[in-house]
């Protein structure tokens, strides 16, 4: 136990004094903020461009069409007559395109718009405007009463009221559980990768044998797992300390209130269980590898295992009580993230919660036992990747 803490402390110390770790710590929130902010700005800068379209107006409807369009779409009347001349004018004035409004459009609804500038936004806006114009003109032609038409085409308005109060999805609760699901998932994945690299590094630096002459392999593995768990918490704490004040200040959302809605026991049990399961898997995986580049396909598959949860996120969100959702929240390789998500969307029956916990913890325990065996032999193998056959042989290997 004492030695396990020494290893954990060493892992934490080594990472906290490592430039790469610190850069990652600072850069990750920056990159995330960038991803959130940059598209918004890009969108804003993109907005004010104006597109001019020439209309050969045989119907006298250009004025009406213009009222159906936003300001940045300008309809203009060509000074020339004849298609060729108009096309020339469009080119010369660098306008976006031109089209003909005639009787045929009203009867068939078909129109050819020749464009000079492939601006998807304005093209789609014009399309919408033309549709509206077409409807207006056809209504006028058919002598239909506009009020009557609105009455006929009005959509049904359904008010959904849950019979029991706790079925009512709380928006806040939902958002919080989605955010935490992603957070836990992110933590498991980054800590797992770091753990794998830590085992790899021990081998690459040829330190495994020296360290293993002082402590047992299981102790080394546990120390690494605990150390990286604490490192993950330090990371998370740092980001929360950095992000929460910003979120509270800038976001139009009661962040602090929402945090109270967090289902702490679910997060603790499934977060911790998920971490134990995947960390044991990742650290022993690192022990079977020579380096990252030489990882084989089967090793790559194990790295993808935590991603499984993402596959189920869509179906679970649309139907949180469906069979798929229940399965994914019981299956130990997806339950850490999915159970958290479900508990935000619906009320998960107690038996499912307990079964999922038992399955997850049991699988984590078994995985740790197997991982210990793989770890103790893998750490001492130099110069090559372990083959699946070797790993199976290691698993059958008897402990002293």
């Amino acid at each position: 136990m004492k030695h396990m803490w020494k290893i954990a402390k060493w892992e934490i110390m080594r990472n906290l004094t490592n430039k790469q770790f610190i850069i990652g710590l600072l850069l990750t929130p920056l990159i995330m903020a960038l991803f959130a902010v940059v598209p918004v700005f890009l969108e804003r800068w993109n907005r004010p461009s104006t597109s001019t379209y020439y209309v050969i107006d045989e119907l006298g409807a250009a004025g009406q069409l213009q009222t159906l369009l936003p300001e940045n779409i300008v309809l203009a009347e060509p000074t020339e007559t004849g298609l060729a001349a108009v096309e020339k004018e469009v080119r010369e004035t660098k306008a976006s395109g031109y089209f003909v409004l005639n009787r045929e459009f009203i009867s068939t609804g078909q129109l050819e718009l020749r464009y000079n500038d492939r601006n998807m936004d304005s093209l789609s806006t014009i399309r919408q405007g033309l549709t509206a114009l077409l409807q207006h003109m056809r209504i006028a032609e058919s002598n239909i009463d506009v009020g009557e038409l609105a009455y006929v085409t009005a959509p049904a308005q359904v008010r959904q009221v849950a019979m029991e109060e706790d079925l009512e999805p709380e928006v806040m609760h939902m958002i919080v559980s989605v955010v935490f699901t992603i957070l836990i998932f992110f933590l498991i994945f980054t800590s797992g990768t770091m753990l794998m690299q830590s085992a790899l590094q021990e081998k690459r630096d040829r330190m495994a044998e020296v360290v293993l002459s002082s402590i047992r392999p299981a102790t080394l593995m546990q120390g690494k797992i605990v150390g990286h768990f604490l490192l993950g918490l330090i990371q998370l704490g740092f980001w929360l300390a950095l992000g929460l004040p910003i979120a509270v200040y800038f976001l139009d959302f009661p962040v602090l209130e929402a945090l109270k809605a967090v289902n702490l026991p679910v997060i603790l049990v499934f977060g911790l269980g998920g971490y134990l399961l995947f960390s044991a898997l990742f650290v022993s995986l690192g022990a079977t590898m020579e380096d990252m580049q030489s990882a084989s396909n089967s090793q790559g598959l194990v790295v993808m295992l935590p991603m499984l949860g993402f596959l189920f996120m869509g179906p679970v969100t649309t139907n949180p009580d469906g069979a798929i959702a229940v399965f994914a929240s019981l299956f130990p390789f997806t339950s850490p993230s999915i159970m958290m998500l479900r508990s935000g969307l619906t009320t998960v029956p107690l038996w499912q919660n307990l079964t999922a916990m038992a399955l997850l913890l049991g699988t984590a325990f078994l995985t740790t036992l197997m991982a210990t065996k793989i770890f103790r032999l893998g750490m001492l193998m130099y110069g090559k990747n372990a083959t699946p056959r070797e790993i199976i042989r290691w698993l059958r290997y008897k402990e002293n």
Partner: protein
Amino acid sequence: MDGLIVKGISKVYGSTTVVDNISFQAAQGKILGVLGPNGAGKTTIIRMIMGITAPDQGEIFFQEGGKRTRGVPLNLVGYLPEERGLYKETKVMNILLFLAGLKDMPKQSAKERAMEWLRKFGLEEYANKKVEQLSKGMAQKVQFIASILHEPKFVVLDEPFSGLDPVSQDQFKAEIRALATSGAAVLLSSHQMGIVEELCDEIFLIHKGKEVVQGDLQSIKERYGNFRVDVLADQEISLDNGRVESFQVLNGSRYRFILREGVEPLEFVHSFPAELGIRELVISRPSLHDIFVQIAQGGVEDEAYVEDSQMGDYA
């Protein structure tokens, strides 16, 4: 006897017996040389002693102050493995303190002793530098310090001299000697026969996982190497008096006689004719290197060649 006691250990990987019923002892105050060609099972034996892998059969004991324990207490042992390194991006002193901490050494005394050792090897200015700034030889000295910093009662050194320059080799030899003198049992594995011959009190030779011979150097030489007499003389020597087992012309008129077992060299020399005109006369036993090559026939004969990894031991 205090020290390491290995009793009939065996290890089987798949269908190969890597270590076959090996027994030996390493007494405190003595240096035991474990020799063998590549793939002989040395690293496997060392790993079993360290408790990294377990023997399929047999037992390993450690006796300290008359009290015997099964297996070697990890805080009493110091280990310099053949596959060795250091965390590259970490400071020298931090690594030494970390490893000493794993051996339960108090931090303050570990720091003082680490500084002392670094000074001894002329590395004190590197204490707070990162390992990546060290040369290979310097790193090897730091690895050596790490393995003996906690004043172990039992030291295992696997190829400690590989890659060292002659000056550093002498330094290492002196320190290893000092370790034994201060009462530690030292187990040394090396391919450099000259050094082993010079340093070791006892020798244990294995080949293909089996014991070939063990004992002190002199008795091994007596058992495996008959006397040899090299003579440079004015006249051609032609004698066959039943004392010589084999005979070789080395170069020019230099002859080497390998004597039969039990033949006294002096008695042989007396049988030379008076008019022979001896210019040089050397009476010796074969070197450990010769014995090693002779015993490990089919093993690797070239010493310089014997430097690569021990993956064969692991299988």
